[in-house]
């Protein structure tokens, strides 16, 4: 860990602050729905504020740490804010704030349960981000698994229940594998579960087979949340079933918790040298490439918008894995930055899908003819993000692709560039039709010559509520802004370059 490590209660405050919503929900009168939910949003805002307050210190290279409980030596619950963890917490607190605001007008029944579990999930995820060791990470990660279950089944339809069940089965199996990984790590790693800047394990501790076991059990355990291809089964069901803000978070943050775990394992537990020694990155790369291509192909065949977005998420999260597996400076930079980039883009896309659902009740892409005229702001934002997903400059998507491409050349493996290109093409193939349907088709456009054949008017005034539109606009704007002013302090580059700069000098 870096030198400047100071005791601070702020990490703990950030973890506990979301529980404020729980208090609000239980304490406030039943009738004051608006007040109650806005107070929850205020809680999310406060959390974001607390996280933000650490920004100057983090940029100075400080870390903050607080010990919660100690089981025995080497097994302790400790929160430490380092650059990488802070980077994750910032995007997640931000996205959470927007999703909470959005939910105020989106969620129309059982909002108490929804908001409480939203808040709990945020608390646990911040705990994940601030974990100082694998043990703490695992505990918060498991809690988050259970906290997110009620979000997925919120609609309580048969489909939602089935999706929730599938989610639980996958998550619990993954939790068990992860548990095994932690015990194995603790055993072979000589009780060292902490994170180090260059990794803490080495071949001095145990044999190759042992370390590879640890690595692959970690990969399998986190791979379920990160939706690496053979383990992705729950994602395409859970996303459409969950309410849109929950899908946005699921895709934007919860999937990333798995990816973040893999980042931690690669950077802070194993370290690049050891990975290169064990050649485990090859397996990661192969899996990631397969996932990227196959998920995109699957996405093509989906008509349900959210399902298509879900498959897209599966592919996109694997960009992160791919970036890590390149073991090169730019690759790692691109991969880790993609964590935020994708959260912004996909969060926005899912929120847009939610607006469409609320305003028109349409789920399938083929029914969305002319929807761009009914919901112009939403669909413009949607298009911006969709274009960004394909990698069109100036946008965050372009930055990712550029860095990954450069990283693969740096690693001397141009084959990845081909994968990226194929993926970009496939992205275009499944996103452009949506934009086309929304803006260039309308009801009755296939009518015979001579019949009424007029393009609908843009209806700016009839958009959804402000609570829903404002987050979408903010996200879409950020997709562009972060893609242009890349190096502004507080934007992903400022953190990730620091972390990656240490590892790949």
């Amino acid at each position: 860990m870096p030198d400047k490590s100071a005791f601070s209660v702020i990490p703990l405050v950030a973890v506990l602050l979301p529980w404020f919503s729980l208090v609000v929900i239980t304490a406030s009168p039943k009738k004051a729905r608006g007040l109650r939910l806005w107070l929850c949003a205020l809680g999310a805002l406060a959390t974001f504020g607390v996280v933000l307050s650490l920004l100057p210190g983090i940029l100075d290279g400080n870390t903050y740490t607080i010990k919660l409980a100690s089981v025995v030596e080497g097994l302790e619950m400790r929160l430490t804010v380092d650059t990488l963890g802070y980077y994750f917490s910032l995007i997640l607190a931000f996205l959470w704030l927007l999703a909470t605001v959005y939910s105020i007008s989106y969620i129309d029944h059982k909002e108490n349960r929804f908001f409480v579990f939203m808040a709990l999930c945020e608390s646990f995820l911040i705990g994940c981000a601030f974990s100082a060791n694998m043990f703490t990470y695992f505990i918060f990660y498991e809690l988050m698994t259970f906290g997110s279950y009620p979000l997925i089944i919120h609609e309580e339809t048969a489909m939602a229940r089935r999706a929730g069940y599938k989610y639980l089965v996958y998550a619990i199996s993954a939790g068990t594998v992860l548990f095994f990984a932690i015990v194995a790590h603790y055993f072979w790693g000589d009780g060292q579960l902490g994170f180090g800047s260059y990794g803490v394990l080495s071949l001095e501790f145990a044999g190759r087979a042992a370390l590879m076991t640890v690595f692959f059990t970690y990969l399998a355990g986190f791979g379920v949340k990160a939706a690496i291809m053979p383990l992705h089964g729950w994602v395409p069901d859970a996303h459409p079933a969950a309410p849109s803000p929950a899908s946005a978070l699921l895709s934007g943050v919860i999937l990333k918790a798995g990816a973040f775990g893999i980042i931690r394992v690669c950077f802070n537990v194993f370290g690049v040298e050891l990975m290169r020694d064990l050649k485990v990155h090859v397996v990661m790369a192969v899996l990631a490439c397969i996932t990227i291509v196959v998920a995109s192909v699957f996405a093509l065949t989906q008509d349900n918008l959210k399902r298509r977005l879900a498959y897209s998420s599966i592919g996109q999260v694997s960009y992160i894995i791919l970036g890590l597996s390149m073991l090169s400076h730019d690759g790692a930079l691109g991969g880790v930055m993609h964590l935020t980039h994708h959260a912004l883009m996909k969060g926005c896309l899912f929120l847009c899908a939610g607006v469409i659902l609320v305003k028109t009740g349409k789920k399938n892409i083929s029914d969305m003819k002319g929807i761009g005229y009914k919901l112009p702001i939403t669909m413009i934002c949607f298009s911006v993000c969709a274009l960004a997903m394909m990698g069109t400059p100036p946008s965050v998507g372009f930055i990712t692709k550029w860095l990954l491409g450069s990283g693969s050349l740096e690693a001397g493996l141009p084959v990845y560039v081909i994968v990226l290109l194929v993926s970009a093409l496939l992205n275009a193939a499944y996103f452009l039709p949506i934009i086309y349907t929304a803006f260039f088709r309308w009801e009755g456009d296939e009518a015979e010559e001579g019949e009424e054949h007029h393009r609908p008017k843009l209806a700016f005034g009839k958009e959804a509520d402000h609570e829903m539109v404002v987050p979408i606009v903010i996200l879409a704007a950020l997709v562009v802004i972060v893609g242009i002013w890349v190096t502004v302090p507080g934007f992903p580059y400022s953190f990730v370059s620091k972390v990656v700069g240490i590892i790949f000098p």
Partner: protein
Amino acid sequence: MGAYRHFPILMITVPLVCAVLLPFLGYLRERWVPRAALVPLSVSTLLGLLLVGKIPAQGYLSYHLGGWEPPFGIEIRVDYIGLFLLLVVCGISLLAMVFSPRYIGKEVSGGRLTAYYVLFLLMSGAMLGFVATGDVFNLFVFMEILALTSYALVAITGNRNAVRAAFKYLLMGAPSSIMVLLAIGLLYSATGSLNMADLSARIAESGYTEVLVVSFILFVIGFGVKAALFPLHMWLPDAHSIAPSPISAMLSGLLVEVSAFALLRLTFSVFTAGNDAIIGGTSEAVSVFAAAAVLYGGIMAIMQKDLKVMIAYSTISHIGYIFLGITSFTKEGLAGAMYHMLDHGLAKACLFLCAGCIIYVKGYRRIEDLKGAWRQMPWTCFAFSVAAISVIGIPPTAGFISKFYLIYGNFTAERWPYALVLLVGAILAAVYCLRVIYYMFFQPDKRGAWEEGGGDAPASMLAPVCLLAAGTLFFGVFSGLIIDSLLKAAAFLL
């Protein structure tokens, strides 16, 4: 040595003597019996708490009864692990006792009420004596009090199924007691001593290895029946599910564990763990059976329709966990097994008491009937969920910590298959526990059996349930308080 050296013996004898005096109170004022029965248990708990910190992790408190030094007199030996279990016994007994009055008033007819409390106190006192004693024959005596009272408590409702289950329990329990008695005889014949500490020294120099091996096998079979180790478990599902819920909680949460603890004491303090010639083969066999128990209990629990039977099968599975920890012969495994006794005691007691609340309020026993139960019984359902999560072993409950150490211990001993079995056991537990939670919270109540605001269980029943659930959380989060010392104590035992 201050006055506290007397505390262990008072902890044991006060409940026993109060049990004898209770009928007089029952004769005068039967209404006061339930409240009066709380007094001796509170006293024991208090004395136990006062002992905390007095016993170092790597030492013990030895008390010579009648002033005769061992091996001539009987010794009470409380080491750190013993005190830990004494406190578990006191705490859970006290909570089960608090739970009892309302519930028992409904299930047990008037004339037997006093008998119920008398037997309950005898059982608690006997458990304390059983855990604390340092003499093998004394162990047998307390085991018999324990056995007698538990047979009777299973049958106390007088219902025909209950009597049948109690008789089945007796038919397995009594021969097993005799086996223990025979094993003690063999041990005595080979060493000439009955004191545990003295025995371990004499065993080391005894030439009668064959006798000791068979003695150990008989001990394992005898206590294996009491602890419901896999092929000897047949009595458990019936007895635990038919007994009144507080008794189920005592049997499942304490009795089987105390029996497992006795085996642990015998293995480590008498037959000394390093002595492969004597215990090697048997402990291997026990590991295999324990692994089978984990899987069998889990699978059977999944197949059950009755809530209490499901919990009972889960107990069989968890006894397997404890034995897998003990037979790993590592300090981590041992500490895990001890911690598992704590959290399994808390969680199982909580589950059975929750089932009791449901039976008390609605009379439902089937899992299917629980659909949508949380509308009417939110506290019970939340407590149930917390305890169930501990049974699965999900953080931050105590179950996670113990499972971690159990698996870690099996890792250290390089027993990979057993570590794997433990993990599979966790998945099985997840299946049967989450099903119930799912029914309680997320299934619609189509029959309209549960009415919102229909009233949860009364406060005197909810309080112990919630305390137990909170306990599993507390000991999960603040496990550092205990596990460190347990590890040291386990290292000391080894």
